[in-house]
């Protein structure tokens, strides 16, 4: 999968820590020697996490972002590109999800939730897109839960936003194909033992996994291009399980 005539690119942009997945993916990428720029909106957790990664030798730059602000996302993307050069892998995982019946939604909170997912996906992708096309290889990945393809009650912001993000993926997959840019979405494929675990049913809790179990799938997909997969909705758990079997490790490493 080497890009012809180009210096191999090692940089990754990871946005957001929904389901605690973003940090787990960033840690995995660093563990595997990638240079990571991690965008998140938590001004306390983010630097603390970055410090722990650096202690283990990881190369990570944390950037605090307001994902609902196009300007903030644009500035962060510019800073990331300045730090990395052309990224090889861009993962958009930022999301906020609150549940309200339609009658209880107020416009500003609704808009904020939609913008954190969909507007931020667009702004981040728009920033890196010309660079990826020019480089002739790269991987752009959007986290896509069930709300991206089905309806759920009280989901009038998050659901449409994730559906919209899925649509953006489909368009960019087509536009990026001839330049070998992989654009996909990815569903966790399994309940994630993260901030939403307290909402799970007993059945879901029995099968839930820690975020780091899924991280190898993201690391793998950070190195693909369109010749492997583009325009698809991938399954992180299935991919991570196959990778674990293939590597003989049997289990992922939490860094």
């Amino acid at each position, binding site marked *: 999968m080497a890009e012809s005539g180009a210096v191999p690119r090692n940089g990754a942009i990871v946005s957001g820590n929904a389901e605690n997945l973003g940090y787990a993916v960033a840690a995995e990428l660093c563990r595997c020697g990638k240079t990571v720029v991690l965008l998140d909106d938590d001004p306390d957790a983010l630097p603390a996490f970055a410090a722990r990664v650096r202690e283990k030798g990881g190369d990570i730059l944390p950037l605090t972002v307001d994902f609902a602000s*196009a300007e903030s996302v644009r500035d962060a993307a510019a800073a990331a590109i300045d730090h990395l050069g052309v990224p090889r892998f861009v993962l958009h995982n930022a999301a906020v999800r609150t549940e309200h*019946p*339609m*009658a209880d*939604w107020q*416009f500003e909170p*609704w*808009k904020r939730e*939609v913008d954190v997912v*969909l*507007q931020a996906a*667009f*702004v981040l*992708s*728009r920033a890196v*897109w*010309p660079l990826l*096309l020019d480089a002739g290889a790269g991987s752009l990945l959007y986290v896509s839960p069930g*709300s*991206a393809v*089905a*309806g*759920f*009650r*009280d*989901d*009038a912001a998050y*659901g*449409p*936003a*994730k*559906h*919209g*993000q*899925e*649509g*953006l*993926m*489909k*368009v*960019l*997959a*087509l*536009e990026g194909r001839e330049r070998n840019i992989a654009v996909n979405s990815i569903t966790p494929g399994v309940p994630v033992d993260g901030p939403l675990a307290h909402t799970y049913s007993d059945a879901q809790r029995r099968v839930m996994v820690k975020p780091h179990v899924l991280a190898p799938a993201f690391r793998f997909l950070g190195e693909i291009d369109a010749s492997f997969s583009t*325009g698809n909705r991938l399954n992180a758990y299935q991919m991570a399980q196959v990778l674990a079997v293939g590597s003989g490790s049997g289990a992922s490493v939490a860094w």
Partner: protein
Amino acid sequence: MASIDDSVVFLTGAAEGLGGEIARELGRAGKRLALFDVQEEKLQAVAEELATVTEVLPLVVDLADAAATEQAVQSALRHYGTPRALIHDAAVLKEVAMTDVSFDNWRREVDVTLQAAFILSRAVWPGMVAARKGSILYVSSGSALKGFVKETAYTPAKHAQEGLMRVLELEGREFNIAVNTITTGAPIDTPMSASHYTEEMKIGMVHPSRLAPAFVFLSGIDASFATGQRFNAFQMSEAMRSAAT
């Protein structure tokens, strides 16, 4: 249980094209209308034409402007009360590659489709809930399910609108509110299609008035008839026409 005037319909994108024909068909069917569009002259022309057969409240509004959209729908609610149906037809489609699309244009296209759908639906929802009936209909597209090159805003917006329908149809069930989407089902000769269709896509093109009967019918349904569906306006209208002869 509160009551709704079964003759009242709110319709966006009414100034021309498919929306204009839907407005005419609704007017001929005796519906009292609130018509929303940004194109003032064309909207006024449609309103004047329909004023001879029904009551029309034209509302010139930029549906990409959240505050203006909220103000307009509240005006319509004050005038008519809760409508029997909300039909969101307004949309903007500019074919621009991701390398060339500006944020402002992207934002505008998404807001006219998704943001306006939310604001309008949110405004009519409590009245429909109280009345235990109502019909909300979003005009959809192949772009709501598939990707197309250069539809960097339109495809995400239509996908998102489809997602909103999928959420609201679940929530509306217990209140008998029908929430559906509807595709044209056939290429239609409108200003939007003139700038968008290839020659191949124009094969079989029909006048948008051929699709309008379906909208009149669906403006009178509730969840007990159908909800969460993706209707085909051409097939439905042709079937209705055939059944009537």
